[in-house]
């Protein structure tokens, strides 16, 4: 209502602004923090909450009563009291199976749900239910969607969500599904280093070959890009999707725990406290050379943990040095010499650490660029891309050419991975391979799709198993099955197959090795829409009931306190309206309660005004309203 009134009052202002603005947003769904940005008047801007804060901590708390709390509240308050029910760094679990999760479990407060037989997807046991990483991410995305809808005063056209360049197919699918589950039209998944390069390239009019060094909370990415005439061509990409600031925290925390002694390293609360202490120390040591924090490792007893920058750097250097391998390979793949780069762009919160900057500067032999906020640059680049995809300014001038981060192949006899699409091939891309049957009248065929650089299937990541069915019966070796791999612009693989001699499309049954099947995702989305409506209704009803209770109590109290102010017939009218509100309150229609409240408001308005005047008269003993106003506007110091 208020929104509409404002728009009528200032048509010129809001119109011109909206005319050059698409309703598409860019979202950086980060390990530690998430952001949403839009392009406004030709410039990308990150959207802030009412406190001016652009970052939403990627922390979600699941309450026992079904409620969900996202962001700073979940991180600062609930994570400490309910470590198991509060999920942080969920990005590390995206598209992962329970066995992968075990590997990252060394120092984590979470409890995993032991489902019956289902080994394909991690489920956290939080708030008395089992939630998948995709659902946790969707809860974060929902908060960002609402923030953007509020800023743009309406529904969104779509969103570009960023992913680490080194995310594999399963991790990408899980991210896209999370977007859909959050009610977003996902226009594109964009690689984070590419997003950063886009923000830099357009802002600084940069040309040449650049390296993007992206060290976030949980992932490390490096991309080598050539920028020329509006073409952003990714030459190569590399990284480690399980290396980031979190690992620094964990390394520091392990050392702190060992040093503190006596603390229970198996206690979720203790782990949360020590991890938080490690993060706090790391942040303080970005500026200072020594720091201390107090923590309560044993209830009722405060322990002071101290660390110097030199000690911290000695601890995390071995972790940081894991970046060197991917860096070398990315440069080799791009056929670029270390010294021949036009610039090195820093992205990600962890690149604020002096140690990381020194490492990058020494490795590349040049001072890295960090003049766009490393925490925001990815979201800003994503907003630019979203705006272009939705037809905003710059569409058609800029061309992004990204690549497949890891080779895609099929398992062949002997457990060898046969690569069909090599890493660093420009997307979208495709490949075809023809297979034949081994037995007479064979009607089915199994295919195992893997991703990775290693020769052996066992050392690659299993993506999915396909069963081709409905091959017409023929002698062995006669059928010609053409299997087509297609990687789309999001870096996601689709597989199709047809029998060439008969032209029959083979039916494909997909069983993802990790993650959820399409059917499972579809069901979750449908459930969320159905429940989403119910949730909203329940909330509105609860709100109206609270308001009804308040106004009924106030009206009764007023009539009791000042019966002399009631005029003839007024009491009856108010009583009637009160009864109507109580009757509506007992029902479950929030609209009916609202209407009854408004009727009561109307019936009691004159009485309420009289009561207010009386109160003013008593309070200021006979001074008229103008005098009271004058008094109220005087400043305290001037008397």
């Amino acid at each position, binding site marked *: 209502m208020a929104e509409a009134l404002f728009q009528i009052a200032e048509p010129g202002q809001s119109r011109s602004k909206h005319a050059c603005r698409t309703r598409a947003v860019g979202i950086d769904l980060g390990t530690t923090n998430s952001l949403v940005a839009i392009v406004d008047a030709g410039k990308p801007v990150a959207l802030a909450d009412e406190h001016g804060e652009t970052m939403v901590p990627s922390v979600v708390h699941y309450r026992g009563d079904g409620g969900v709390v996202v962001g700073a509240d979940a991180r600062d308050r609930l994570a400490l009291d309910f470590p198991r029910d509060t999920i942080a760094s969920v990005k590390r679990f995206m598209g992962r199976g329970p066995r992968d999760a075990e590997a990252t479990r060394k120092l984590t407060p979470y409890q995993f749900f032991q489902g019956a037989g289902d080994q394909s997807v991690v489920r956290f046991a939080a708030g008395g239910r089992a939630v998948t990483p995709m659902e946790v991410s969707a809860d974060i995305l929902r908060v960002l969607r609402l923030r953007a809808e509020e800023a743009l005063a309406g529904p969104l*056209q*779509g969103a570009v969500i960023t992913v680490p360049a080194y995310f594999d197919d399963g991790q990408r699918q899980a991210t896209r599904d999370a977007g859909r589950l959050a009610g977003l039209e996902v*226009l*594109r998944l964009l690689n984070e280093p590419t997003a950063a390069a886009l923000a830099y390239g357009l802002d600084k009019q940069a040309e040449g070959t650049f390296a993007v060094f992206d060290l976030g909370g949980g992932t490390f990415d490096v991309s080598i890009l050539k920028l020329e*005439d509006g*073409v952003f061509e990714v030459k190569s990409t590399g990284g480690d999707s399980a290396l980031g600031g979190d690992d620094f925290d964990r390394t520091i925390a392990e050392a702190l725990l060992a040093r503190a002694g006596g603390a229970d390293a198996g206690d979720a609360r203790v782990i949360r406290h020590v991890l938080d202490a490690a993060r706090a120390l790391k942040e303080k040591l970005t500026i200072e050379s020594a720091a201390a924090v107090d923590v309560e490792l044993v209830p009722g007893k405060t322990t002071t943990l101290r660390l110097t920058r030199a000690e911290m750097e000695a601890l995390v250097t071995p972790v940081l040095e894991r970046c060197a391998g991917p860096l070398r390979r990315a440069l*080799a*793949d791009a*056929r670029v010499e270390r010294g021949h780069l036009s610039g090195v762009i820093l992205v990600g919160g962890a690149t604020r650490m002096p140690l990381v900057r020194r490492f990058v500067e020494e490795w590349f032999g040049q001072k890295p660029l960090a003049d766009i906020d490393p925490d925001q640059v990815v979201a800003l680049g994503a907003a630019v*891309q979203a705006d*272009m*995809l*939705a*037809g905003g300014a710059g*569409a*058609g001038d800029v*061309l*992004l*050419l990204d690549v497949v981060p890891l080779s895609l192949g099929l398992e*062949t*006899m*002997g457990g*060898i991975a*046969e690569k069909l699409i*090599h*890493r*660093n*091939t*420009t*997307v*979208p*891309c*495709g490949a075809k*391979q*023809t*297979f*034949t049957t081994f037995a007479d009248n064979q009607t089915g065929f199994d295919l195992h799709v893997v991703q990775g650089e290693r020769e052996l299937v066992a050392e690659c990541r299993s993506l999915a198993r396909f069963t081709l069915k409905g091959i017409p019966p023929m002698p062995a*070796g006669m059928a*010609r*099955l053409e299997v087509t791999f*297609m990687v*789309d*612009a999001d870096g996601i693989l689709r597989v199709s197959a047809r029998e060439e001699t008969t032209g029959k499309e083979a039916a494909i049954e997909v069983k993802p090795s990790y993650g959820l099947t399409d059917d499972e995702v579809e069901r979750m989305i449908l459930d969320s829409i159905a429940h989403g409506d119910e949730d909203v209704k329940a909330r509105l009803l609860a709100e109206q009931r609270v308001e009804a209770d308040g106004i009924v109590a106030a009206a009764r109290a007023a009539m009791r306190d000042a019966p002399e102010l009631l005029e003839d017939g007024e009491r009856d009218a108010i009583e009637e309206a009160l009864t109507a509100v109580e009757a509506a309150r007992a029902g479950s229609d929030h609209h009916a309660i609202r209407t009854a409240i408004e009727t009561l408001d109307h019936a009691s308005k004159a009485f309420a005004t009289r009561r207010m005047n009386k109160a003013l008269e008593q309070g200021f003993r006979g001074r008229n309203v103008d005098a009271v106003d004058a008094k109220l506007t005087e400043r305290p110091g001037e008397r």
Partner: protein
Amino acid sequence: MICWSCQKQAGAAPLCAACGALQPPDDAADLFAVLGQPARFAVDMPAAEAAYKDLSRQVHPDRFATADPRARRASLARTVQLNLAWHTLRDPLRRAEYLLLRAGIDVGEKKPGDADGQRATNKVAAPPAFLIEILELNDELAAAKRAGDTVKVAFMAEEMRARARESMNEIGAALDAGAPGKLEEAARSLVALRYYQRFIDQASGGQGGDGAP
């Protein structure tokens, strides 16, 4: 081709001549023609790259993110073909292989379980004498590596690189010569070149990129 959108003659260009809707590609199209280049080994690289980028701007999925699903599918298929064309033309080895394939000579590597690999007719094999030479060189390289003789390893790799470069030049000349028998000669040299390439990869640590020299 009849346009999927306006049902009129679409013409040969990516966009329908009548209504401007993006048309699906011809799957059988020649990859040189896709980039508007004559089919020969000596490619005008700057012209091919400019054509690639120009066409990409027109047909890339980023231009059709909010378009009709049929236009989106056409955009995806067009761009896949365009990327394949540029991937093939920009790399001398892949370019040579493709030129031979167009002429009916398959020098593609046999893939396990691949039906084409099992029933290919016009396969080119390396002569036994050549294979023996390579085998001996491989043994020599392995011995030098075992002995930690990095100078010799580097020397052998450099020698092989020179041989590979020379071979690539010969293949290019043979492919563009247009004389009878020259294509077969190029095919044999290409098979040999693969062995050189593998040798160089072995010498320089065993990894290496995706096959480009």
